[in-house]
């Protein structure tokens, strides 16, 4: 069998594993209790590995915020000095079966979603989504949001998850895609469906009424509630497709605000990086393009498993957040079919006569066509201390895919 045939077989195996993925929310628990290797003074962050000295403003701000939240420092200056000293270990989420939105910071006492892929038995983790601390805002209001999540919402939601015996996420994802969500930045349907699924179990679990009402209010009012679940689900779905010899399928795409990185199934855990691109987007009043930092977050795990920008054509409602026209959104989805291995048989788009989402990014096709994955994303400030400032569209850098293909050649051809 020649190498082309071996690659085709390996890629069919990779997408088969992606298709079989069956994500179930099994728990919501403090990260230090559930994430392998997260212990002591350690903070996980988004994107490929990066030292404190090379981090962008928003990433630094988020780390300062989570350090204050943990009580490891009592002032911003103290937190900054501690982080710069190297006494707090900083490691990528992806090295711990985890993902996080924007800066993606996960510390031991922060509750995370625990999603189990019941088809393969692996677990993945993601933190809650909010619009302040993860964007680099370390204000008291931002920290109060984290404390509310830790002390009120997460325990109540965890009680409901336990009561229900886990919440199957695939039916929610399938339905939400047919209700106009793309599962990266538009979660109007999925968040509502998830809140519906949790409401009765939360009452049955006898969560005290004030906590119950506060948590239900939080869930009902949070239109990106499901993003943390979609990301954990994406990671849980993608991980079994790792380490398939000869596969050219991408198993992770992520950004740390300085670099964009990808991993490829047949190339193990090596990162292939390039400078993070600038997002082309729309801004919250009071902010403008000059304020923007570079692309950041692990949330491109959604595109890695065929959601987000890959199904933009089925979710025109998101264009008010990221810009563009409905025709362009349809064109993006058609374009992504040129760089993927197959279509998902269950994640369907009514706007395309129920065609499946383009699935399994093939680095060979990306390099051959020059078409790079399209990602819809939020925008953080280039400096620390700010909340979310906008949203837009960005392309994964072609250089990551060229580097990966060159390494693939070294490993499998010579």
């Amino acid at each position: 069998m020649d190498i082309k045939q071996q690659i085709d077989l390996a890629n069919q195996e990779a997408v088969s594993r992606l298709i079989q993925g069956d994500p179930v929310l099994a728990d919501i628990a403090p990260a230090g209790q559930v994430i392998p290797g997260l212990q002591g003074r350690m903070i996980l962050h988004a994107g490929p590995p990066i030292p404190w000295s090379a981090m962008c403003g928003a990433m630094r701000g988020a780390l300062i915020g989570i350090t204050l939240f943990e009580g490891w420092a009592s002032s911003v200056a103290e937190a900054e000095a501690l982080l710069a000293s190297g006494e707090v270990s900083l490691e990528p989420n992806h090295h711990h079966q985890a993902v996080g939105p924007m800066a993606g910071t996960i510390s031991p006492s922060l509750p995370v979603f625990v999603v189990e892929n019941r088809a393969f038995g692996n677990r993945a983790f993601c933190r809650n989504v909010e619009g302040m601390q993860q964007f680099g805002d370390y204000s008291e209001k931002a920290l109060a949001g984290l404390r509310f999540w830790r002390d009120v919402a997460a325990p109540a939601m965890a009680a409901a998850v336990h009561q229900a015996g886990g919440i199957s996420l695939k039916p929610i994802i399938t339905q939400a895609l047919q209700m106009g969500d793309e599962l990266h930045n538009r979660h109007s349907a999925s968040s509502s469906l998830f809140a519906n699924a949790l409401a009765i179990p939360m009452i049955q679990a006898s969560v005290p009424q004030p906590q119950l009402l506060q948590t239900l209010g939080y869930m009902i009012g949070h239109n990106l509630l499901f993003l943390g679940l979609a990301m954990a689900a994406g990671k849980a779905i993608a991980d079994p497709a790792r380490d398939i010899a000869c596969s050219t399928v991408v198993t992770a795409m992520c950004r740390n605000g300085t670099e964009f990185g990808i991993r490829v199934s047949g190339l193990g855990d090596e990162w292939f990086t390039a400078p993070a691109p600038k997002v082309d987007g729309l801004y919250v009043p009071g902010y403008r393009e000059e304020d923007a930092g570079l692309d950041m977050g692990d949330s491109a795990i959604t595109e890695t498993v065929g959601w987000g920008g890959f199904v933009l054509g089925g979710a025109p409602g998101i264009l008010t957040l990221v810009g563009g026209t409905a025709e362009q959104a349809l064109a993006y989805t058609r374009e992504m079919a040129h760089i993927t291995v197959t279509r998902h048989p269950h994640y369907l788009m009514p706007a395309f006569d129920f065609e499946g989402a383009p699935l399994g990014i093939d680095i060979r096709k990306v390099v051959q066509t020059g078409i790079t994955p399209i990602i819809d994303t939020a925008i953080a400030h280039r400096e620390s201390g700010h909340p979310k400032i906008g949203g837009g569209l960005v392309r994964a850098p072609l250089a990551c895919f060229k580097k990966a293909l060159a390494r693939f050649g070294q490993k499998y051809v010579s």
Partner: protein
Amino acid sequence: MDDLMALFTGPLIAINVGVRDFGLALEQQDVQVIYVDWSPPAGGDQEMLDLLDQLL
């Protein structure tokens, strides 16, 4: 030859493959243009083309 000349006696429709500037110049002269997105495989990168020959 007659077939070729016939092109210029009827309405002309041009197909522009790749770089759009050529088509835009024709449009400015009231010629109808259909655009085809095209770029050289691997952007013309010979090292990548050699690899793709073996892998795709």
